[in-house]
């Protein structure tokens, strides 16, 4: 039976194995390839998407668990916080190989949406689940602070 959900504000119906992780449904079936596969065990964060606004590892989330919910991928990231994060990412030249950065941006956007002025400890707590083998961590931290500074506190959530 097809599973109905919303992806990037578009209604979608997916007739796939209900156990299929959301990651493979959005990559292979919806062809939204910005969300990356890194580990398949929720260990690296490359697959992070927002489900009803919450940062979620799509590689271990069965598609059946997302029925009726709203999924935002990097392609659909349009929140004020999300845009501020991407602007800071580009401005500080955060990416190196870039493969993990979709997940980093999604985790950082979710952080700023709930905490518009995160401390270094807040950043550690929110971002420690996202691995970057190029170790762009120093710039990720700086970019989150820069994005936060660019953001009036009241706007982050909109």
């Amino acid at each position, binding site marked *: 039976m097809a599973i109905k959900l919303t992806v990037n504000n578009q209604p979608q119906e997916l007739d796939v194995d209900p156990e299929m992780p959301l990651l493979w449904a959005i990559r292979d079936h919806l062809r939204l390839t910005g969300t990356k596969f890194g580990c398949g065990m929720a260990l690296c964060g490359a697959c992070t998407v927002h489900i009803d606004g919450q940062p979620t590892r799509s590689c271990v989330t069965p598609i059946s668990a997302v029925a009726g919910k709203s999924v935002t991928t990097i392609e659909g990231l349009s929140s004020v916080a999300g845009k501020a994060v991407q602007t800071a990412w580009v401005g500080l030249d955060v990416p190196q190989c870039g493969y993990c950065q979709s997940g980093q941006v999604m985790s950082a956007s979710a952080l700023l949406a709930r905490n518009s002025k995160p401390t270094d400890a807040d950043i550690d707590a929110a971002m420690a689940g996202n691995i970057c083998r190029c*170790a*762009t961590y120093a710039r990720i931290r700086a970019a989150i602070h820069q994005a936060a500074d660019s953001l009036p506190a009241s706007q982050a959530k909109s």
Partner: protein
Amino acid sequence: MDLRNIEDSLATWPPLARLGITRRAFLRFTTIAGSGLTLGAIIPASAAKKSGLTVLGIEGTPGDFSTPFVRIDPDNTVTVICKHVEAGQGVWTGLPAVVAEELDASWGQMRAESSPAKVPTYGNFAFGPKGNVQGTGGSTSMANSWDQLRHAGAYARAMLVQAAANRWKVPASEITVSDGVVSHKSGKKATFGELAAAAGKLSLPAEVKLKDPSQFKLIGSEKKLPRLDSHSKSTGTQQFAIDVMLPDMMTALVLRPPRFGAKVQSIDSAAAKAVPGVVDVVQIPRGVAVVARDTWAAKKGREALKVSWDESGAEKRGTDAIFKEYRQLSGGAEAVKVENRGDADATLKKAAKVIDVEFEFPYLAHAPMEPLTAVARLSADKCEVWAGCQFHTIDQANAAQASGLKPEQVVIYTLAAGGTFGRRANAESDYIVEAVSIAKATGGKYPVRLIWTREDDITGGRYRPATYHHVIAGLSQDGKLIALKQDVVNQSIMAGTPMAGMIKDGVDPTSVEGGTAEQYDVENAHVTWTQAKVGVPILWWRSVGHTHTAFVKEVLIDELAEAAGKDPVAYRLSLLEKHPRQAAVLKLAAEKAGWDKPFANGQAGPKGARRGRGIAVHESFNSVVAHAVEVTVNDGTIKVDRVVTAVDCGIAVTPDVVRAQMQSCIGYGLSAALYGKISLTDGRVDQTNFHQYRVLRINEMPPVIEIHILPSTNPPTGVGEPGTPPIAPAVANAVRAATGIKLHKLPFDLAAAKATKT
């Protein structure tokens, strides 16, 4: 690693010999290269159009002015065709910067794209003067492109100037170019795009004059040149091999042997084929492939697949047994001389103090964030490969062999690689050959996308070789290092590969490069290497042999300084008289770190914690890097608080990229120092994913990293790797300064080291 012999080593290797690199072709090419003409040889724009890259949307509209390295389109964009893979190290920014400088382009008009696999046009001159191997490695991308791309930019500039001169009927000498605009004093102006068509019809000028470095506006500028790939990589639009979606494409996973060297005995594919979505199960040389409509079905199918393995030829030892054997082999009957100068034995007997140390380094997986992936599409007369190729023409030759076609029938589309650190450059092109083999075994019915899972990546071999060093060093009465005996044991990266020709006098240079005797000019030194025979596949890993030789060198020298009662910086400087670059870099790092000053925030850390400083310097890939670090050791854990880095990499073309690479090298090296370890039990790899193969996370990254680049007018040298070797020893030295614990085994285990008497 001196890579200059790779090309000769490969010359007799059958897959490459089929590429037709004949002596005649070589002579013709070197003649052209000598005159610089290859840089500006015009290819018709239509050829680019047919390249197929437009399928992926990574190529713009073919322009009117087109050379192998520079294309100028009517829309006024300047595209630099990069022969090196962009794997994060910044070549899509650094290489365009070189062209933009000589062309006097505006940075905003610069673009980058991958070249086709083609030699000698896109050969790497660091791999040999003939340019008959295209590949990215040894931190050579900038070094071997520097002169070539400066010429490419200068030729393009001269031709645009000539085109303007012809159009305006004025002498070329009266025309200036600045920030992407061609101007004449009469007030006439034109963009590159407006002149491109006319310029493309001109013949090449006989010669061009390169800028004097004092005239550089973009190169070396502290006004940051934004990376050309930051936007695509911050918005999820950068395409990697895993993102390639071709019509009717299937996804394949491969079941590989549980032990290295095992072979397929029998296959029961019934259950796998019963999984909905699975379309084929085929045997290939490296295992059994499950081909399915999507990745999930391929994964489920592989879980259901039953294969019996013939393990008669498999490696069944564990790493404990392997290290035991290494200790026995060390300096023994099979040891080969690496260096023998003076009389180390006799001098050691006279030494006032002798230090005897063993070092152990585990196997390490590269673990790039994008697991190995390749897409292959095969027809009767053509094989197309999409991958983050690091060994372009070797991959092409291997794909040709696997597909049964000729190399010229193999088209390589090099995409951005989601990290590689050496893993995607291997002589067998393992992952590419797998993809092509599956396409071949399924009769080219559909394009095949091969994905390695993280478990495949961690357990799949091609690791940094496990390595053992035994060092005996002697000090004179006044504390001078007067004698060194060093025995190294590990597997050879080059042996048994087409690059075996790089083994000279029985020594694989990648096993011993960057040694202590060499970099500290020890007068009496006897160094041996013993090649271990183990069935675990190995490969170069970011900075190759320096990953272990630098650690031994810099920890040893620090302990010798302590034994001599000398300051670690002063002691090193006394040994670096013949190495002025190393001395200068070391001094700068020490000075900027405040080596002689107390800790900025006091010596004491949290209650019960110990703080310490350590330093290390090392030369690799023609660059020199020193790290001065501060650590806090608390409750059995090591926290790196601050890293002050100095680097001499010649001219820093894009200083911001150099800094990014230093940060990256520090993080990558710290992963290995603190956590990195692949172990085997009875021949089976113990680690499978990031919960067991732990890597550095943001909360473990040193909160303060300061990077200082030495001003230089020398040609650029490597930055992708040279920052890695000195970080682990700097941290070990800081830990010893803080606690007295000597760390001689990686990854660091404070409790174990404390319990070991050394």
